[in-house]
């Protein structure tokens, strides 16, 4: 490639940049993305990330199914999503280019590792001709960089094989991006030193690769400009970067402290929930007991057993595992013991697309048990909110003696954003007492306000009693087949859960309190909806956004909010599950907008749909 001598690179200031790293699943793209994220976060940008990786751990090298991506958006203003489209795409091989270039807008910067565009790799990616030379990438600003060659050269003299050296090329690419966006290499070099402290040669190679990439950006005249994205003006406080799964685990750890109950976690490995197990199993110094069970049923069974013994008990899974847990969830509802069931949703049905996103387990958690078996449902809207909702789920479970479903999803679980650390002293204590008085104890004597039954744990003298899945007589708790008793108990169980509506925050509205259109969402669609509504406001449109964190029961003012607008639009990453609940519950003719592509909504999709509805209303 010929380059024309040009003046010194200029610095251009941008509000927001979105980068996508894409490569083979063995190329270390998740690590590259994570390192860029840490650096941007520590610098003070607002960030939002979207890891996108295959379920195959190492699909055949260079193949289309083996492509792994990591998108990060960083900004000097507050952002809610990892960006609809990347401004820059880094493609480490033809397969990564092929699967990702479709998302790059015209004019977007495309950085490719030209060394990887061999006939063999082109063939694996099903390219009939080389896209670098056939003109098909004309719409983009293409930077062809022989990353593998340059990287290997920078590692001359190190006692490593060519193959080992090639494994560090992701750091070369990261170095280029650090130069391009004026980032410090220090957080990453420190991380490398720590990570590879036992293998100094590997540490040296990775650092050299990083620095070589940076120097390449600085000294070649390939890029005419580099870019500056200033720190965002976030609320004062101490921040860290956190993923949803990390926040979930921390939330339950803190909840156990707030309730003065030891935390017990029963779990069976499943994508994308396993990281919660990994994290909680590291909290042994807090007395957290984790149990990797033989299957999903044993995981929830053990959690119910621990709850019976007085612990704050938790189990987590994803849709297929939740399906296996349903009978035990019914048992927990019947014996009325506190339990939190975390569902980190993924694309289904069945095994579906295990690493891809979907929010389609709402009705499963709502109704997926035999008989009428109501359980409360909460759902965090952002990765950081996973912390707050974990505490909320524990609070409801303990206060109301009930299993609670907590619906996260793959996007929240693996995505990250800055988190302002909470002040632990500001978090309210969760008051929960065991029954102790044999003179007044009855197993199903309910608290008049919450309708919760008493928690009488083994070891309490004089409170020996029997619980189980068979229907029990109201108050006294003996096995009962009395028809009227069963009817009363069904109503009591339903009333207990419905009554939680009095104890949860009202549904809040962003935007006008009444008018033409309300967009109602739940879970991880929050960022896209909020950004879309901000965009519509900027365009002078009257649109409001409300986001449910409690899906069973709904906040008490939900109907009032919904009826304040002519139209209610419900975007969901499913085929209309909240829509069905809202229509059934309130007889409101809400409009669904469903996109189930294994990916989060794009802002533009929601803007377009909202404009279509507003347009029709005006027509």
């Amino acid at each position, binding site marked *: 490639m010929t380059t024309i001598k040009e003046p010194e690179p200029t610095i251009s200031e941008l509000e927001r940049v979105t980068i996508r790293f894409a490569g083979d699943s063995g190329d270390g793209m998740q690590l590259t993305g994570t390192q860029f994220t*840490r650096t941007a976060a*520590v610098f*003070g940008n607002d960030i939002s990330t979207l890891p996108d990786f295959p379920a195959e751990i190492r699909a055949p090298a260079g193949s289309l199914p083996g492509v792994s991506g990591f998108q990060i958006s960083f900004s000097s203003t507050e952002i809610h999503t990892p960006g609809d489209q990347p401004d820059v795409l880094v493609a480490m091989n033809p397969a990564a280019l092929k699967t990702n270039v479709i998302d790059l807008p015209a004019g977007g910067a495309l950085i490719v590792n030209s060394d990887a565009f061999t006939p063999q790799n082109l063939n694996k990616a099903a390219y009939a001709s080389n896209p670098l030379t056939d003109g098909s990438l004309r719409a983009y600003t293409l930077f062809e960089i022989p990353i593998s060659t340059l990287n290997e050269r920078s590692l001359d003299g190190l006692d490593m094989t060519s193959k080992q050296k090639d494994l560090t090329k992701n750091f070369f690419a990261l170095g280029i991006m650090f130069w391009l966006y004026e980032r410090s290499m220090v957080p990453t070099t420190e991380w490398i030193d720590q990570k590879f402290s036992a293998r100094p040669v590997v540490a040296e190679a990775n650092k050299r690769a990083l620095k070589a990439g940076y120097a390449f950006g600085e000294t070649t005249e390939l890029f005419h400009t580099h870019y500056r994205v200033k*720190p965002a003006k976030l*609320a*004062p*406080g*101490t*921040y*860290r*970067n956190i993923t949803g799964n*990390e926040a979930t685990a921390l939330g339950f*750890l*803190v909840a*156990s*402290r707030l309730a003065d109950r*030891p935390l*017990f976690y029963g779990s069976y490995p499943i994508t994308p929930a396993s990281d919660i197990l990994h994290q909680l199993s590291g909290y*042994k*110094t*807090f*007395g957290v*007991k984790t*149990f990797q*069970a*033989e299957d999903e*049923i*044993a995981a*929830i*069974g*053990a959690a*119910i*057993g*621990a*709850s*019976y*013994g*007085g*612990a704050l*008990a938790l189990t987590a899974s994803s849709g297929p595992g939740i399906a296996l847990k349903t*009978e*035990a969830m019914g*048992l927990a509802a019947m*014996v009325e013991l506190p339990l939190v069931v975390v569902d980190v949703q993924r694309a289904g049905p069945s095994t579906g697309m295990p690493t891809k996103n979907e929010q389609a387990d709402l009705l499963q958690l709502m109704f997926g048990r035999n008989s009428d078996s109501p359980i409360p449902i909460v759902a965090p809207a952002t990765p950081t909110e996973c912390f707050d909702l974990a505490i909320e789920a524990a609070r409801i479970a303990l206060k109301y003696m009930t299993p609670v479903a907590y619906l996260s999803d793959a996007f929240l679980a693996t995505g990250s954003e800055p988190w302002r*650390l909470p002040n*632990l*002293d500001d978090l309210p*204590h969760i008051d929960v007492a065991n029954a102790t008085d044999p003179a007044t104890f009855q197993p199903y004597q309910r608290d008049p306000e919450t309708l919760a039954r008493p928690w009488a744990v*083994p*070891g*309490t*003298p004089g409170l*020996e*009693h*029997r*619980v*189980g*899945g*068979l229907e029990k007589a109201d108050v006294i708790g003996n*096995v009962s087949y009395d028809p009227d008793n069963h009817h009363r108990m069904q109503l009591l169980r339903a009333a207990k859960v419905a009554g939680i509506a009095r104890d949860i925050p009202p549904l809040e509205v962003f935007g006008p309190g009444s008018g033409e259109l309300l967009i109602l969402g739940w879970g991880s669609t929050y960022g896209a909806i909020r950004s879309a509504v901000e965009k519509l406001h900027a365009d002078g449109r009257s649109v409001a956004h409300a986001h449910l964190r409690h899906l069973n029961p709904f906040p008490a003012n939900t109907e009032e909010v919904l009826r304040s607008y002519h139209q209610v639009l419900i975007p969901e990453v499913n085929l209309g599950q909240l829509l069905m609940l809202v229509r059934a519950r309130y007889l409101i003719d809400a409009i669904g907008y469903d996109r189930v592509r294994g990916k989060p909504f794009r802002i533009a999709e929601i803007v377009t749909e909202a404009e279509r509805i507003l347009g029709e209303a005006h027509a």
Partner: protein
Amino acid sequence: MTDTNGRSDTLAPAPPPLSPENAAVITLTRKDFVSDQEVRWCPGCGDYSILAQTQKVMPDFGYPRENIVFISGIGCSGRLPYYMNTYGFHTIHGRAPTLATGLKAARPDLMIWVITGDGDALSIGGNHVIHSMRRNVDIKLIMFNNRIYGLTKGQASPTSEFGKRTKSTPMGSVDTPIIPLTIALAAEASFVARSVDTHTEHLQGTLERAGRHTGSCFVEVLQNCNIFNDGAWRDFTDREVREDRMLVLEHGKPMIFGKDRDKGIRLKGLHPEVVTIGEDGITEADLLVHDEAAEDPYLALMLSRMSYPEFPVPVGVLRAVSRPTHDQLIEEQLASAVAKSGPGDLERVLRGGETWTVD
């Protein structure tokens, strides 16, 4: 380290395990373990005897009533916890060992009995039995084996004989039956025993042994269902024949049986054989000596596979070995983590690795 509310940074550990040694002297009788619930098994059911023997041995362990929990699954056996005046949990089909595992992990101070049946433990709950045993969860699992599904009115169970005609197998079962004790041994249960509902003294002794064992116990109780599988075990358990057709195992003693105490078990190659003492020059010294504490499980496995009519059916303790229990190992890890790094610092884990401050 304590936080501003004066709470310790490490959540309060469970109270120390209660054992007969450190328990206050408790004087309870069988009656103290009888609940106020009306027993509703069919008249003549073998479960009555098992319940009675269980209630009878319970005071011997020195545990206060409130520290004993009975957990059951589904089936006729599942009702037993309702009849015990202790804590009780009648769970769902096959899953009792899972609840017991979680409860024991959370509360090492409790004595936990799991009551199950051949269908509950070996069909729908087979996986959980295997894993609770291999983990050496400190539970006493008592499996009532009547070789039939009683509560659902008479279908073949996993221990039903090959060819057994039942409501669900009118032309005979085509399934090879499971040998429960072989499964328990293969699953590394640290205590494996067998007894019979009607042999009340032996049953009492076996339950007593299980109650005193620390670790995973698997006790098979051969039990009669007089409604759907009457006489399930009568061929060798009836009073008139049992001495000739059953082998009562005693640790350290030669394997002798028979009304006249003249029959024994000898090892021939890798196989057991029945011999008569005094015939062909055979003496007691030629017989196998039972060793329930043998480190390897070969003898116990061999015994588990001896069945009537080829062999006398062994009853008693096949295996009783000691190894750390699941809850002990969990507690040890927690303690060693604290010993190494100190009690957990919540502020520190909240901060994670890197933080930055916005003014």
